């Protein structure tokens, strides 16, 4: 068999090869990232963050924190499209792991996200700016939830382009969460609210949950998740081993078999 290209064999070269693969993947993967979605989310987010400064007059902490929340949500909605990959089916069975491919996409966007968020925070006037660490926590949670949703859709349904559905779900959740969250589990507090610190404890929990979900969803399962069927055992069906059957014996089998689905 003619072997062209070099495929490493053995353990040590594999590890080396993985680094080589990663470096060589950077350029093509960077071209497949849906930059328009990320840019649109970032651009609109900056616009939202700039509203308190642009609106003139005294900016309140209330306006500051909500502008940053709107900005973070915009960016997260754009980032929900990050794992959209029209070639997912074509590249479904390649040896480079899905987790690595997802991680590469995230790694390409994260430095930009950090720079963008710094700009957004700085856009809010000093007197209206909420504690930077705490709002960053909220923004990171929104981003992690978006990525977790996208990664989960890929894992569960093998979706090519989960972005649209995930961004819609994230948006619905973001609109409903302040309306429906119980008062003893408040998340959307204001900086001078005594519950601010408690709320950010909950944000930390949410962030950890979302990051865990990202990590779990990025791994391609080798077994299907089967909540019920796993425990049920079915007796082996006699006479089902048709393969290799002679033409004569296969006939009864075909006639007695269940009707194929239309």
């Amino acid at each position, binding site marked *: 068999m003619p072997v062209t290209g070099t495929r490493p064999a053995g353990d040590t070269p594999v590890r080396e090869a993985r680094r080589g693969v990663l470096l060589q993947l950077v350029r093509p993967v960077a071209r497949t990232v849906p930059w328009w979605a990320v840019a649109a989310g970032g651009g*609109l987010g900056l616009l939202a963050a700039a509203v308190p400064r642009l609106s003139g007059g005294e900016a309140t902490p209330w306006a500051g924190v909500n502008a940053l929340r*709107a900005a973070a949500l*915009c960016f997260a909605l754009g980032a929900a499209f990050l794992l959209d990959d029209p070639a997912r089916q074509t590249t479904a069975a390649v040896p480079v792991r899905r987790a690595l491919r997802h991680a590469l996409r995230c790694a390409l966007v994260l430095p930009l996200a950090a720079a963008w968020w710094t700009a957004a925070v700085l856009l809010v006037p000093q007197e209206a700016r909420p504690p930077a660490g705490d709002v960053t926590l909220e923004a990171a949670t929104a981003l992690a939830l978006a990525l977790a949703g996208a990664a989960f859709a890929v894992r569960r349904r093998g979706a090519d382009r989960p972005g649209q559905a995930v961004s819609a779900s994230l*948006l619905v959740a973001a609109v409903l969460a302040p*309306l429906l969250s119980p008062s003893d589990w408040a998340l959307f507090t204001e900086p001078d609210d005594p519950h601010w610190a408690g709320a950010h404890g909950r944000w930390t929990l949410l962030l950890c949950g979302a990051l865990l979900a990202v990590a779990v969803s990025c791994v391609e399962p080798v077994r299907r998740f089967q909540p019920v069927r796993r425990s049920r055992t079915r007796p082996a069906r006699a006479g089902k081993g048709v393969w290799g059957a002679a033409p004569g014996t296969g006939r009864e089998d075909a006639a007695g078999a269940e009707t194929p689905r239309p």
Partner: protein
Amino acid sequence: MTTATTTAPAPAPVTTPPGASWAAVSALARFETRMLLTRVPVVVAFTVYVAWTVWRTRVSFDGFPALQDADRATQDGPLLVGLAVLLSANHAVLRSRRHDTERHLDVLVLPRWGRTVAHLLSVAAAALVTAVCVGGQFAWEALKPGAVGHGSPAELLVGPLSVLLLGGFGVLLARLVTAPFAAPLLIVLLLFLATFLGFSASGWTRWLMPSVGTYSVVTLPSDLIGRPAAWHALYLGGLALALMSAAVLLSGGARLRTAQAAVAGAVALTLIGAVGQSRGVPETVTEARVRASVTPEKLHTCVERDATTYCAFPEWQPRTGDWARAVGDVRALAGGDAQDRPLVVRQRVEARYGLDADATLTPLTRPGEVTVGTAWGGNRVSEFAVAVAGVLVAGSEAAAGELCDGRMVTVMWLALADRPDPVADLRRVRLGDSDTGSSIVVSQTEPLQMTSAQTELLRELLELPREKAAAKVKAGWAELTAPKVTTDRVAQVLGLEKPEGENECL
């Protein structure tokens, strides 16, 4: 048949009757409606909206709604549905592009604008479902036994029109920007700008938003509301139509006369509505508000029941029975001539600030006159009972407001003793919801004051069996209601222990 036929008879040419494409549009619209109404965001939004509305309407307005308030309460929920419809209609229009079927669909008989019209009709169907929900919510309020007043159809239209407007915007957006991330991002920006500007804007710009709230909780007679509700509905409807016909224009319907005319007409309607709603409260309403606030007696109709005259604005006549029951309860406990002394219950409202601010009413100075407000149910009943008891004991509302002696115990006991849970009601009428120590007692006019000692004595009296306490109060009525009677003396007359708490009015 034994011989092979080589030529099949040509099928009869399919002739399209002139109305056929509309039939296709309506068939497609039914399909799109089913798709839209079963999209996850729309289902979630409708579920939350309906559940929230049912939850709220069970106890809204304490069971005694004024329909001129209940109509406005239908406006906020549909915004949630509207956002979901915006998102889903946008996705639905982009669906064919996303699945790359646009090329196939573009060569079909049904033109592109026909598909847009079908999407718009599906949005209209969602608005209709919302209208049914709004109608159901309002009907529920109107059927409550304690309902009074009149709702405004224009206010009721705001909810469904908001859904139509937002959904139409979603379709237009899909025809303007084909990126699937445009709609969610724009929704965030819209929401943010709406909250940001909604809180800071004043005057006519407020009315550019779909749902416009009020700054006060006062219930006004329906002719004093003074909201440009009809103009606003016209503005919303015009804007929705303008966006929708623009979407048709943008999807290849540019040469359609009807679409061009629709855009022009809708823009005109929007402008007329916008100008109409920005003109503020009409002069006649302002004058009527002053009349209703300063000289309500000129507008009242009066009914007499059991030595009490009830004078109220005509819309509140059906509530006379509820008031009479509260007055009867208090009178039944009173002694002396208080059981059949003539009283006048006068309904009053401070309407001069419209729905922009709340203001308290000044106490009535004429003897035997009691104020009743426009709201009823819940705490309002106990507050009214306190006012009636105050007038029975002190003679007039103004005098009751200045009470600072042992008579306070009698007033509060008269007001509360016949309530199902007097101590709970005591907490409700007191500022800070306490049932010990000194506190302010909330009333429709000037607040009253209770000292620690009076509270203590009242609690003791309430713990006695009601008949026994009533007998003691009736027996000592003259002394209990004598001006300047001390709290200690009241305790003595009632045969109760002297209270130990401090007894100084603030």
